[in-house]
């Protein structure tokens, strides 16, 4: 039964295996198993919450480590100019196994902590200095900008004074100032006694600020502001803010306090500056000097920080990988149960039976790396639990298997439709997509992806491209088959090829002509004589429709036949003669007969025959409506009435056969068990699997047997069986009809594809060839039209139509074919492996 090589036909045979791992090698053993990636651990303490598990504190520490590494990673990538992080392959590996591994991890933990502390310190002072720098810069701006205001105000001051002297045109502010008598005396030249508040505020707050001040001070202010062109960059978040410098002249300490309060509440920063110009100049000089110092320090600090980060960057990939592995290992160790007395850990899990030897070798390797002498002991358990489903796929079959797995994971050891989908899927796609040109385009695109797959894998792809990349082997086959079906339809970018001698001869006459048959049959594909013919569609429609039916019936019959290896493998002969035989008979007596009639009708030369060719659709309909009688003139062959009656009777018999035989046989079997007195011993099987198991696990096994076996042995429910069988029968019989009709989508889609491609050609290039626009004009026109045609061919005919044909091929496989035999009641094999999360990260 077990062939020496794994195949896709059935899922791998799996074994439930128990490992006794001495605690000193447990870490390295798990690591070795994860390295091989073919062992799925079972949770042996499902009742224990994750907090109570033995290695939770260790995991928390590792979580902390990986948080630190992520933090470093973010800071390294944020630094400008960017620092390169050497890839995992370029850095010396971090030892995660062996006797020194624990110490190495502790050291790494300390190292990470130290790095984090240093970085935090640096970041903190960086932040502080950055803030300081911002403040200084703002002050510089305030000093610079207010200088302008002061000059202006001083200028106006004199102006106003003259106007004050001259007449009563006064500005409100100075009027008040004059009233209160604080206007400076004439003799003081540089002094400017009006009190003021100055500072900065964010630009978008400026209008609100102004309005509030106006209301609060009832207009008793003179305000001036100017914009600072350069944005201020926040040292932490890197956000840019634009600010304005303002200066407000007002009078009286109360008003000034109010202004200060308003400004502070609006998020503004106030800077004290002096009203005397000299002092302001001093202050500006001082600020600039300090700014320079701060800049210098900041620069030095960024250098140190950069050095520190680059030191971290050197090892970060190795650390990340090591910590990730360590986390996986401890998560797994948490699943094991600990035998206190013997100081061993007990692991249980599934592995492919074929790999047990490899696993045993791995266990021995683990002992060598750990430097101890006691290896883990592996023992196989006998069980009635359903093993997980595991198909060994490679990069070629992966895509096809995914198509099937997305419908449902195969039941353990069931016939896997994935192995057949490798060919049938691209073929059915191609029947809908048949065009040599489009096939070549798809084939070439996929070939390029396959040729450069290593390069493409390294450079990350975006989501859409990676979907196409994942399906590259599917697309390459779809393209290849499309080229073949394109030859069959004789269709290349909506044109036809005349490779062989056509079977039609057109008379050399003007106007409407009818071709004469030469008696020659075009040997490979559709005769080019039909291309461009007015009644070409009538012919191709009839041809493609019949082809869809024939291919559909064959595909469905094939799917029904796939039941047989399943029934034999699962030792259910009853299903063969109570389900498979009536199903195939039912199918063939109606649609198989239709297919035979189609082929027979094609093989008869009706021009030599005495009767006209009958319509097959009507024939099938009247086979049901008036069995046994054939309308004169619609006879296909002699004895047709009798044959049809017999076939109809077979189909009729098949329905009760499917419906009743299986429930009856099951009921009889059950009666026999009851008769022998075993009726109430529902869980009789538990006795068999006690071997090699701990007594406390008996219960668990008994529980998991029950749902797998269904209601047949345990608690036989006749009602359920009958209802199930009725549904199954109705589904099959109605499905036969609707599914056969469903294959007509092959015709519909290929018709649509051919017509669309013809319309596209006619609307673009075809017009350009006949245009009368001179040599240059026509050249340009043709060039432009060709570009448009090519672009639309790719976008609409290849990509859009391709996706639609893909979906229809998918449906035909999922519903029409898989529905006939695929039970899909399994669960996937998910082994512990170091490789998988890495893929996720890169994707």
């Amino acid at each position, binding site marked *: 039964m077990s062939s*020496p*090589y*794994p*195949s*896709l*036909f059935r899922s791998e045979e799996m074994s439930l295996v128990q490992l006794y791992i001495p605690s000193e090698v447990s870490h390295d053993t798990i690591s070795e198993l994860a390295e091989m990636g073919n062992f799925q651990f079972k949770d042996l303490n499902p009742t224990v919450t994750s907090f109570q598990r033995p290695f939770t504190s260790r995991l928390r520490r590792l979580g902390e480590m990986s948080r630190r590494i992520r933090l470093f990673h973010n800071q390294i990538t944020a630094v400008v100019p960017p620092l390169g992080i050497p890839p995992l392959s370029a850095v010396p590996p971090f030892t995660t196994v062996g006797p020194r591994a624990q110490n190495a991890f502790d050291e790494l933990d300390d190292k990470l902590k130290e790095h984090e502390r240093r970085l935090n310190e640096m970041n903190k002072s960086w932040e502080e200095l950055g803030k300081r720098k911002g403040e200084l810069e703002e002050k510089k701006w305030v000093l610079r900008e207010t200088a302008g205001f002061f000059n202006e105000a001083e200028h106006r001051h004199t102006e106003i004074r003259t106007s004050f002297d001259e007449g009563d045109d006064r500005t409100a502010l100075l009027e008040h100032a004059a009233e209160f008598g604080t206007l400076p005396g004439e003799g003081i030249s540089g002094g400017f006694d009006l009190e003021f508040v100055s500072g900065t505020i964010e630009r978008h707050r400026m209008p609100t600020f102004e309005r509030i001040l106006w209301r609060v001070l009832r207009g008793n202010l003179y305000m001036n502001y100017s914009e600072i062109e350069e944005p201020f960059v926040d040292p932490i978040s890197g956000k840019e803010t634009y600010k304005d410098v303002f200066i407000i002249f007002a009078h009286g300490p109360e008003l000034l306090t109010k202004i200060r309060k308003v400004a502070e509440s609006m998020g503004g920063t106030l800077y004290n500056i002096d009203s005397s110009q000299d002092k302001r100049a001093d202050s500006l000089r001082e600020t600039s000097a300090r700014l320079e110092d701060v800049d210098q320090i900041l620069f030095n600090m960024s250098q140190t920080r950069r050095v520190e980060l680059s030191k971290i960057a050197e090892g970060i990939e190795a650390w990340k990988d090591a910590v990730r592995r360590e986390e996986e290992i401890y998560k797994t160790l948490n699943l094991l149960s600990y035998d206190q007395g013997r100081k061993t850990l007990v692991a249980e899990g599934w592995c492919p039976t074929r790999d047990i030897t490899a696993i045993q070798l791995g266990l021995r390797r683990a002992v060598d790396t750990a430097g101890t002498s006691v290896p883990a002991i592996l023992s196989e358990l006998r069980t009635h639990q359903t093993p997980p489903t595991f198909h*060994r796929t490679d990069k070629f*079959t992966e895509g096809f298997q995914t198509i099937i797995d997305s419908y449902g994971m195969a039941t353990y050891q069931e016939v896997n439709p994935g*192995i*057949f989908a*490798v*060919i*049938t899927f691209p*073929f059915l796609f191609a*029947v809908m997509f048949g065009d040599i040109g489009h096939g070549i385009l798809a084939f070439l695109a996929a070939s390029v992806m396959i040729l450069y797959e290593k390069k493409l894998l390294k450079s990350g792809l975006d989501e859409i491209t990676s979907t196409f990349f994942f399906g590259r082997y599917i697309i390459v086959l779809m393209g290849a*088959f499309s080229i*073949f*079906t394109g030859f*069959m339809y004789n269709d290349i970018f909506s044109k036809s090829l005349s490779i062989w001698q056509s*079977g*039609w001869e*057109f008379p*050399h006459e003007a*106007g*409407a*002509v*009818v*071709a*004469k*048959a030469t008696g020659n*049959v*075009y*040997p*490979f*594909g*559709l005769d080019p*004589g*039909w291309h*461009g*013919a*007015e*009644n*070409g569609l*009538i*012919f191709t429609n*009839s*041809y493609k429709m*019949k*082809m869809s039916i*024939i*291919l559909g019936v*064959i595909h469905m019959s094939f799917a029904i036949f796939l039941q047989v290896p399943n029934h034999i493998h699962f030792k259910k002969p009853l299903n063969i003669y109570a389900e498979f035989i009536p199903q195939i008979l039912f199918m063939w007596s109606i649609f198989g007969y239709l297919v035979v009639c189609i*082929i027979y009708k*094609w*093989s*008869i*030369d*009706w*021009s030599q025959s005495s009767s006209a*060719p009958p319509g097959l659709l009507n024939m099938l309909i009247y086979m049901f409506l008036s069995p046994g009688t054939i309308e004169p003139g619609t006879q296909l062959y002699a004895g047709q009435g009798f044959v049809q009656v017999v076939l109809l009777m077979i189909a009729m018999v098949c329905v009760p056969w499917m419906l009743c035989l299986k429930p009856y046989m099951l009921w009889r079997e059950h009666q026999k068990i009851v008769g022998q007195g075993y009726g109430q011993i529902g869980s009789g099987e538990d006795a068999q699997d006690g071997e090699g198991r701990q007594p406390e696990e008996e219960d668990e096994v008994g529980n998991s047997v029950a749902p797998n076996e269904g209601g047949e042995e345990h608690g036989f429910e006749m009602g359920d069986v009958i209802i199930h069988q009725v549904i199954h029968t109705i589904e099959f019989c109605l499905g036969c009809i609707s599914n056969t009709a469903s294959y007509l989508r092959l015709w519909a889609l290929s018709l649509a594809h051919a017509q669309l491609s013809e319309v596209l050609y006619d609307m673009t290039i075809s017009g350009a060839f006949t245009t009368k626009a001179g040599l240059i004009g026509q050249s340009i026109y043709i060039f432009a039209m060709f570009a448009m045609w090519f672009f639309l061919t790719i976008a609409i005919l290849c990509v859009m139509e391709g996706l639609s044909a893909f979906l229809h091929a998918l449906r035909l496989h999922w519903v029409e074919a898989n529905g006939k035999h695929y039970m899909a009641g399994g669960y996937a094999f998910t082994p512990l492996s170091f490789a998988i999360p890495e893929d996720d990260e890169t994707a």
Partner: protein
Amino acid sequence: MSSFMTVVWIAMICAIAATAGWMFTPRGKNQALIRSSIALTITCCYLMWAITFLAQLHPLIQPHKTGLRWEN
């Protein structure tokens, strides 16, 4: 019926080819995949060809065309 026999002959050639493919597939981990792929490819392509061939064997209608331009 001689043309109908072409379909039968080709069917036999295809059957022989498929059997040969089945027999001469080297043993290895992809044996089952290669075998089934060869057999299915030959079957699919043969079916498609045979249907196309048979559909044109005894045509019931002739192509009509208008506005054909002859070179001389």
